[in-house]
């Protein structure tokens, strides 16, 4: 059947297995089986990291296994979605310490991509809050991994894009919050320099994220709206609400072009902003989840998400060069997001590093790939790298340059024979 991920590019013809039990999953990996493919959760990665000829979908193994209300430790199967966790535990005053931009990802996926949220500078990545996980290896054996037990495998698996084995379950920390809603402060920044200064000045806000107008030129380049947030101290707890909007069919790709985007960006940047307001958790953390299948707005061909990080030193120049290049090419999106990262961690292929990350959507069209290659060069020359969970086309050299610990990762893979069973379109492209 046709398989694709969130960016709807590329599409592959593959076999999708959805095991309903450990036995079923193990039987897919028995010695006689020819399985060679990758695990998949809810398919929210943008590129080809969850695509292969054979895919094992984890979504039927989505059980809560145990919860300790004293410590907030939750053990659950890897196919459990963050949405499900929030739905049950948020109303009781709990929260996930790290949340990516959508709640429709599985715990396994969140670990495999070592996802980050709007609070990375204070709270790190999703993997930071995983106590331990169990991994099914290439031969079907299940091993426990943590910072104490099989630590090398643990640090390879968090951020390892499913390439070390199949995560079967994990124990994670939920945290108590004073209220589920977020008190949001919005600040307008007239330029890139301005927004970066504002990020630095507001580092004590728990959450921070900037929407950046990546089509603005000249002195207005990098103008942004910075959204700062902290949990409301109002003892009111609720789960993110279900959105009712959906994009039922793919939009014609003409709808999104240089002119409409430019118009949208100008209007959005100038919109009246409330200095401070209370935002429901769904709207603050997952604004796009409210529109089902929003990826269809980019048309049938889909789109490419491009997210990179550059270290703090030289970040402004690097980002300015990227913005300049993108706006001269007339390509860009209205969903461009700038975030500040704190220090990186020990997970071998984890994306964040101390610096700034910019994420852009590009409509799939001619001349896009050469442009992105140019952007890669800018990013890498500044000591940065691209996010694997969003990548659909990065070259092997770019990957290896950006992730110097790839060799250690490859050797751990070989040690556990993971390279004989677990390969995605992305891993083959990147030479892993």
């Amino acid at each position, binding site marked *: 059947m046709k398989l694709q991920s969130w960016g709807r590019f590329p599409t592959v013809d593959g076999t999708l297995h959805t095991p309903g039990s450990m*036995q079923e999953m193990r039987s897919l990996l028995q010695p006689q089986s020819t399985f060679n493919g990758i695990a998949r959760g809810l398919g929210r990665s943008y590129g080809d990291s969850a695509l292969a000829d054979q895919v094992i979908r984890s979504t039927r193994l989505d059980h809560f*296994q145990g919860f300790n209300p004293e410590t907030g430790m939750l053990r659950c199967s890897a196919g459990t979605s963050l949405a499900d966790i929030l739905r049950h535990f948020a109303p009781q005053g709990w929260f996930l310490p790290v949340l990516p931009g959508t709640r429709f990802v599985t715990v396994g996926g969140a670990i495999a991509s070592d996802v980050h949220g709007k609070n990375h500078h204070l709270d790190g990545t999703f993997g930071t809050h995983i106590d331990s996980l169990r991994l099914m290896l290439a031969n079907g054996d299940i091993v426990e991994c943590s910072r104490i037990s099989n630590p090398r495998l643990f640090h390879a698996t968090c951020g390892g894009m499913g390439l070390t084995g199949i995560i079967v379950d994990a124990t994670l920390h939920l945290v108590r919050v004073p209220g589920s809603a977020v008190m949001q402060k919005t600040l307008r920044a007239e330029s890139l320099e301005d927004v970066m200064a504002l990020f630095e000045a507001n580092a004590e806000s728990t959450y921070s994220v900037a929407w950046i107008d990546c089509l603005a030129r000249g002195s207005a380049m990098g103008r942004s709206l910075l959204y700062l947030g902290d949990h409301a101290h109002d003892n009111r707890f609720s789960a993110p609400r279900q959105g009712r909007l959906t994009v039922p069919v793919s939009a014609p790709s003409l709808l999104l072009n240089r002119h409409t985007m430019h118009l949208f960006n100008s209007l959005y940047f100038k919109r009246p902003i409330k200095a401070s307001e209370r935002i429901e958790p769904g709207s603050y953390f997952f604004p796009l989840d409210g529109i089902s299948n929003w990826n269809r707005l980019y048309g049938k061909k889909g789109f490419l998400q491009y997210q990179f990080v550059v270290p703090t030193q030289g970040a402004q120049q690097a980002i300015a060069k990227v913005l300049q290049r993108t706006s001269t090419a007339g390509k860009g999106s209205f969903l461009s997001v700038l975030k500040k990262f704190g220090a990186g961690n020990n997970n071998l292929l984890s994306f964040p590093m101390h610096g700034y990350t910019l994420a852009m959507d590009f409509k799939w069209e001619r001349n896009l790939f050469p442009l992105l290659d140019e952007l890669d060069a800018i990013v890498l020359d500044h000591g940065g790298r691209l996010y694997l969970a969003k990548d659909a086309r990065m070259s092997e050299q770019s990957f290896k340059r950006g992730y110097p610990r790839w060799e250690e990762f490859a050797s751990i893979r070989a040690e556990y024979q993971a390279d004989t069973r677990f390969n995605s379109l992305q891993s083959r492209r990147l030479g892993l």
Partner: protein
Amino acid sequence: MSKNILIIGAGSAIAAATARLYAEQHCRLYLTARNEEHLALQKEDLLLRGAVEVNYSLLDANSFDEHDAILERAAETLGRIDIVLICHGSLPDQSKCEADFQLALQEINTNAVSVISLVTRIANRFVAQRSGCIAVVTSVAGDRGRQSNYVYGSAKGMVSIFLQGLRGRLLRSNVQVVDIRPGFVDTPMTAAFAKGPLWSSPKQIAQSIVRGILHKRHTVYAPGYWRIIMFVVRSIPEIIFKRLKF
């Protein structure tokens, strides 16, 4: 809102999703299925999602001689049973069944006869109790015999007609009989099919089931638009329909 619910075929994707919805309503659940490992996993999960109590027994629905004992055990454990949801079933390989009657018979047993065995006993229990709701997952396939799946369709249709008659009989005993007819659902049973826009998730069906039982509906098409589709399908004159290959 807390009810005592017996779910037969709890290993089915639709049953599992429905059990979760009832767990959130803090119900007391009794599950039967064939896989003990999975039942144990479900029990923990349902308790964490809010179920007040969860117990289970192993049952292969085709073991008719075990039906009385299972119902007895469920009734003892739950006290009074409020709702019974029957979800077990299998999707036959139509062409193999055409060639081999024994296989067809087995499928008819699984999808129709075993259901009738259970429903007969439950109905008598509920009549004595003077309350209760019997909900059975049949299928839109039972609405009309189609070339591509008539072994399945006729088995499900048999159950629907049985439930229809039973409904009338049980009316005066204050017992509801709900016939749930899902359309195309993305479950392990349909893993081999390519999915398209008319496909639903088990969770959507579960929501239809819970709503249908709550509102005391007699026939629930899940999702609701299948009612219109099947109306059209049933209306096509046989002279044309017999020529259609679907």
